[in-house]
């Protein structure tokens, strides 16, 4: 009952938040100079007054801003995100097309980073002053400190040019268009390696540092001494008793990061021409494609809210003490 109430309360909050987000986004994007008609004319190599006016009319941009706003809110409440100005197709379709690749990329990177980072952190915390521990810390910090696009470009040069064993752009080999089944899965995974690795390198440092610090803290506590005194093996002490408690901050950060799905992936998607939501958002900004950008932002707000909800739920799962509250 508690759980249900908590979820319902969250959802009510979320609805209010969404409307606010919509309003702020709408105002922000209309504050940017230039309009879609000028971008479309720019892409066409020129235009004239009548053409620009008719583009504006076709997209309803000739209406006063408040009218456009009310129309937009009304439509979004009914689940209609509108038509993209740039691509002239429903925004919901564009987002659905792009969400899969982004989730695949970010989830792969996050999972590897969480598992590998936590293990590295645990390993480093066992002997915090050893050389190996220092090496883990230094390497992961280097990965974290490098700008993500630079890491990506280095990997592209290394595995695309010096030792060309990996595809460097896109999600599929276009020459194999129409091929399905296992070969297609292998093809996608092959294309996934470099972008996912790039993103993992960035995330890894946070998790290994976090796991190390919180393991160190937990390992110093009394109940660990008790566990050891009981004669439990070091393995059980570390993974069953210590790690479980040390995981809380890791989960918190993972939840936050999942919410930042799009902003985190935009650079990686650009470097690797990965057909995800991040690049869609970027193109929408440059093209002043208001409906698409608003659609992506709305969608990512929903994602942030959902991620937070899931994080809260997983706290309860990890820490039984929270279940009663």
């Amino acid at each position, binding site marked *: 009952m508690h759980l249900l109430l908590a979820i319902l309360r969250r959802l009510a909050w979320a609805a209010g938040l969404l409307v606010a987000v919509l309003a702020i986004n709408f105002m922000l994007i209309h504050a*940017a*100079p*230039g*309009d879609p008609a*000028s*971008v*479309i*004319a*720019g*892409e*066409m*190599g*020129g*235009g*004239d*007054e*009548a*053409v*620009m006016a*008719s*583009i504006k009319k*076709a*997209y309803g941009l000739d209406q006063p801003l408040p009218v456009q706003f009310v129309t937009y809110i009304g439509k979004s409440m009914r689940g209609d995100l509108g*038509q993209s100005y*740039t*691509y*002239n*197709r429903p925004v919901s379709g*564009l987002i659905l*097309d792009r969400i899969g690749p982004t989730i695949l990329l970010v989830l792969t990177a996050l999972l590897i980073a969480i598992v590998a980072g936590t293990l590295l952190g645990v390993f480093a915390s066992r002997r915090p002053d050893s050389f190996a521990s220092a090496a883990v810390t230094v390497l992961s910090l280097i990965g974290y400190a490098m700008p993500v696009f630079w890491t990506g*470009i280095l990997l*592209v040069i290394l595995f*695309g*040019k010096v030792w*060309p064993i990996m*595809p*460097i*752009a*896109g*999600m599929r*080999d*276009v*020459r194999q*268009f129409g091929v399905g089944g296992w070969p297609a899965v292998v093809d996608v995974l092959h294309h996934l390696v470099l972008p996912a690795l790039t993103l993992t390198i960035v995330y890894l440092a946070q998790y290994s540092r976090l796991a190390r610090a919180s393991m160190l803290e937990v390992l110093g506590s009394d109940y660990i001494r008790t566990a050891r005194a009981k004669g439990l093996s070091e393995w059980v002490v570390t993974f069953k008793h210590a790690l479980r408690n040390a995981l809380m901050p890791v989960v918190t950060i993972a939840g936050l990061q999942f919410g930042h799905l799009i902003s985190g992936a935009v650079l990686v*998607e*650009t*470097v*690797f*021409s990965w*057909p995800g939501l991040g*690049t*869609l958002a970027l*193109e929408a*900004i*440059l093209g*002043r494609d208001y409906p698409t950008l608003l659609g992506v932002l709305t969608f990512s707000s929903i994602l942030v809210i959902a991620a937070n909800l899931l994080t809260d739920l997983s706290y309860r799962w990890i820490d039984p003490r929270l279940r009663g509250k």
Partner: protein
Amino acid sequence: MSTIDRRHLLQAGAALTAGSIFGIPLDVAAQAAKGGVLVIGSTQSPRHLNSAVQSGVATMMPAAQLFASPIRMDKNWKPQPYLAESWTLSPDNRSVSLVLRKDAVFHDGRPVTAEDVKFSIETIRDNHPFKTMYGPVNAVTISDARTAVIRLSEPHPAVLLAMSTSLTPIIPKHIFGDGTDVKIHPRNANPIGSGPFKLVEFKPGEYIIMERFDRFFLKDQPKLDRVIVRLFKDSSSLLLAFERGEVDVHLAVTDPRELERVRKTPGAVVVKGAAPAIGPLIWLAFNTKSPKLADKRVRQAINFAVDKQYILNTILGGINTRSTGPLTSGSPFYTGDVEKYELNLAKATKLLDDAGLKPGANGVRLTLDLDSIPGSADQKTIQEYLKQSLTKIGVEVNLRQSPDFPSWARRVASLQFDMTLDSVWNWGDPVIGVHRTWLSSNIKPGVIWSNTQSYSNPKVDEWLAAAGQEMNLAKRKELYKQVQKTVVEDCPVAFLYEQTFYEAYAAKVVNPPAGIWGLTDGLNESALKA
């Protein structure tokens, strides 16, 4: 590697007897096998594929594969039959009658009729951004199922060029004539035409997959099974994909360092000066309405203080062409007989003195803002260079950057600038891409690439109006010569350079399109080596 200059290619093409041109064996045509997949790499992502309502290379390149046009232009700017078997111009030059082939069908099997031609030309006239292309078309009438007559309000010398591949796709009336505004028609993303290839799938920002149309009206064409356009987010990954052989064709190499790498790619063939009809010019535009720049001597002085050779050779690595006036050097109406404004600081200083601009206490005569189109590293470097050069004649320059294209376009179109670097393209006939910049009637605040210099010279207006209706080639050429000389003398812009297009092909590609539109023309004859 080997580089072919387009002009040389033309000359060589006239005499196909020699054993090889530039190391490419001439019997490649014989070796060309039927079939195969050709992948074109591009950084230009189209909005949709209907070139009747959208110009720009991004849309025109795939559209030229999907749609056939009444006419194709060959490499010598001569119209050749395509969907139209023949055409006749009436003696008063006020109507053109087109006779269509019997055997042309759309990808859904329906025949291409005069109705479709009427519908297409009227749609283009009413929606295409190049208004002047069919501006004089009063109506298109239908004599019989295969004959359409274009009725003109005045003689229109550009009408045949306008009907060529990239500019006039014949779109099916039974699909696009359903009453929906064609500009936002849902089928623009999934169109059918009567061209050599039909669309399989278009994923915006990712790829366009096209497949041979078996009922294409030309015998034994096209040769390829599939043409795939792969869209890249940036030019360096496109280049790498070309080097790795993932991409067979690089649509346009523009950077000197990238060109060097393409040339080093084993087997790669580089075509210099491809698509001369497109003709991009890069210039320094002056806002002649700004009180500081209203005196033409000031503009000329700035022009004389800019070393175009330095820009061409040092900044741009010598891969582009000097631009001398409003027409590109590839145009049949081009003249090089104009003031070239070669670097001359003494002359520049004297012009400023004459204009009454004396140096102030700190040596500064004049302070001006300078904008540039965002997103191009070259333009930024040129901007920096201009600032330094102009300091030498006492003109202080404030560099202004815009965060993205719409911000810049807004600034320039609303005439809130002193000087800006700009890139304006010729698009085939002067009526289409040239008149717009210099006609005083096209000073239209809010519209980018109209006459944003606010340039006005009644003589130029008069000559342009005459040239736009002159059917005699020699007379028309003479009129444009006057225009070029006068515009250069009045100096509403300082002409810097022409961007030369370099298309790059993998060794296995034979017979790439060689007409005036380059790759924005059909790949009908192109094939892969057996």
